[in-house]
């Protein structure tokens, strides 16, 4: 799960012009290089080459062990490939449904956990965080067993309340539901812990002032809590958005992209193209398309954030 803190604060240093003089500015410049050198060096060595290599390969097509230069053909292919469209649709669906669902649930749970009179807060917090530390292999096997059409725990539960069993992993619609459920299960607690910390950072005086002014619980929530939490909620949303657009782990193991590509995501598709069809050029093209989309979405989110400030 990748995440990013998108707050490129341009707040100048407290005493930028204070001591003045070119010397001190230069002084402030050079050590900067030394501090970023290890990271930049590592990126340059281990990231740049594979990055450029993948870009380079996207201009080739590989069949039968031979690579031929095809220029931009692999990129053009993206627009004619129904699976690219379908995978983008799928992540779009997940983005629109799962991310708000999860962030709101996390917010609600965090709010409840923040009640001053609550006992066992540590226990609850730990239990909700547990899904985020599970190994992928284990949790996917468990989910597959639980969602089995015949005899799976979930269907057995449904039977107990008189509902008919659902073909979770074999029907297009339900497999998407199952995927959204499993992602939400895995990451809600993680986001909840983050938002909870934000809640605990809200100064008590604000609550007091609001209460003195006679504000009711709902008013306090919408006028005090949410505004104070905005940076945290944004962090959570952005993390989850990029995670949704790059979704791979959960659907790779739970559904393999099926049935009928209902749970295919761009990264899973490029993985299949690269590792099962050995067309690494096309896989690279798909990857770069995704990067472009993520970049656009991030810029949009940047803009929204700036405006609200």
């Amino acid at each position, binding site marked *: 799960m990748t995440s990013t803190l998108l707050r490129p604060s341009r707040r100048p240093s407290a005493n930028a012009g204070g001591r003045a003089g070119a010397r001190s500015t230069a002084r402030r410049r050079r050590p900067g290089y030394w501090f970023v050198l290890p990271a930049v060096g590592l990126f340059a*060595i281990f990231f740049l080459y594979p990055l*450029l290599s993948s870009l380079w390969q996207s201009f080739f097509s590989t069949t039968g062990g031979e690579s031929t230069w095809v220029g931009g053909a692999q990129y053009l292919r993206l627009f004619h490939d129904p699976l690219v469209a379908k995978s983008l649709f799928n992540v779009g669906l997940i983005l629109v449904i799962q991310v708000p669902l999860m962030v709101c649930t996390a917010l609600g749970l965090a709010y409840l956990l923040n009640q001053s009179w609550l006992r066992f807060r540590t226990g609850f917090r730990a239990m909700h965080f547990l899904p985020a530390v599970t190994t992928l292999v284990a949790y996917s096997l468990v989910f597959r067993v639980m969602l089995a059409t015949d005899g799976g725990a979930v269907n057995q539960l449904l039977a107990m309340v008189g509902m008919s069993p659902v073909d979770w992993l074999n029907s297009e619609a339900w497999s998407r539901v199952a995927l959204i459920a499993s992602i939400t299960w895995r990451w809600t607690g993680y986001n909840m812990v983050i938002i909870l910390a934000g809640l605990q950072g809200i100064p008590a005086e604000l609550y007091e002032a609001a209460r003195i002014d006679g504000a009711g619980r709902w008013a306090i929530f919408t006028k005090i809590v949410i505004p104070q939490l905005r940076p945290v909620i944004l962090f959570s949303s952005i993390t989850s958005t990029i995670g949704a657009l790059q979704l791979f782990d959960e659907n790779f193991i739970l559904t393999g992209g099926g049935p009928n590509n209902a749970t295919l995501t761009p990264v899973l598709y490029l993985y299949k193209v690269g590792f099962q*069809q050995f067309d690494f050029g096309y896989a690279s093209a798909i990857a770069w398309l995704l990067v472009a989309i993520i970049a656009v979405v991030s810029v949009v989110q940047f803009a929204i954030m700036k405006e609200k400030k």
Partner: protein
Amino acid sequence: MPKAMKLAAPLLALALLSGCATGGVPSAAGTKLSSDAAVSGQITVWSWDVAATALKRLSKEYTKEHPGTTINVVDIGYDNAYDKMSVGLQANSGLPDVITVETDHMPAYIHQFPKAFTDLKPLIGADEAQFDPSKISASSSADGKLLSMPWDSGTVALYVRTDYFKAAGVDPNKLATWDDLITAGEKVKAATGHALISTDLSTGSLFQMLLQQQGQGIFTPDGAINLTSAAAVKALALIKTMNDKGLLDNVKGWDGRVTATKNGKSAVMPEAVWWIGTLTGEMPELANKITVVPLPAFTAGGTQTSNDGGSTLAIPTQAKNPQLAGSFVKFMLANKDNQVSMMKDEGLFPSYLPALDAPLFHAPQAYFGGEKVYELFAAQTPKIPSIIYTSDNAKAGDTVSSAVVAAVLNHQDPAAALKSAAEQIATATGRKIAQQP
């Protein structure tokens, strides 16, 4: 400082990139193996599961017979083995001396990495004819090289719940054709309420097995798409009929099949010979309730078997000690005693036909009420139809599975579903659709 840094990065990238341009293509076609070279040193072998167990066990015998050699067997797990091997093939480094590759994965590797495997023909010479022909064909390249050696077979037969059939008054030995089986299925359902077959439709494996039984694959010998053939339509229509009559139980994945069998969901299981290991291991309580008969034929007197699974051993050209690797592979696979021993200890059914004469294969099996089930599989193995695989099998597989689901679960007409699948594959691969007579 900054200027230097800014220049260094692109230069570095360029330097490394030039290395990349030549990467991925093996420079040599591999060592020419000789069948009786002196061997020494060590090799590493990758495998998984019981195959790894067999390799570890027999490698001890080998090193006793060939002092001064060391064989390292590594269990790399099955689940992502191909990702690991594919990366090694693509990067032209990182692979060991011997790798295990399933028969149906071999053709794609051969097509995509034609220079990545060592020719094993010099190793066994005429002995090649002693192997199951369908497997030799899958392991051979277009220019006649043998690029991996067949190991075990996935000969398919029909496992039948005798108790269900008895309750329905049907004799499992009288299932000459698939139509007979469907009729039997209806009787079983009426008498016991159980379905006929449990299968995972989303993998398309039942369809491909039925297609292979008729001697055909997804592609024709000249590489055209074969999905619109009469045999393909017949296979899909058969599955659809079963489902329409309520005889099909659709499950998910390996666990789904195992659970369904354990809970007796259906009356028959068209499975390979290695299913026996699962039955005896996970379902001891079903002993004496199962019998094995050949698959029903499509037309009376036709082929009654197919293939599902089975592995091979290959020697990548990047192997560091190919002679020792070749000698060891020959020891494991082109060797009657060792193949029999692997059947006995690990349940790996040989595709080396001379091994099938051993008494082991004619012994009664207690789990199956004293039946000589291995005799049946032994008799069927040489009859497995050889089919054509191409490099696009993997790509086509997903589309085929979708067509199966569309026809069977979503009530699309089988011929139409297959035609649509063929068209999709044609667009994706650039191949032609074969003209059907």
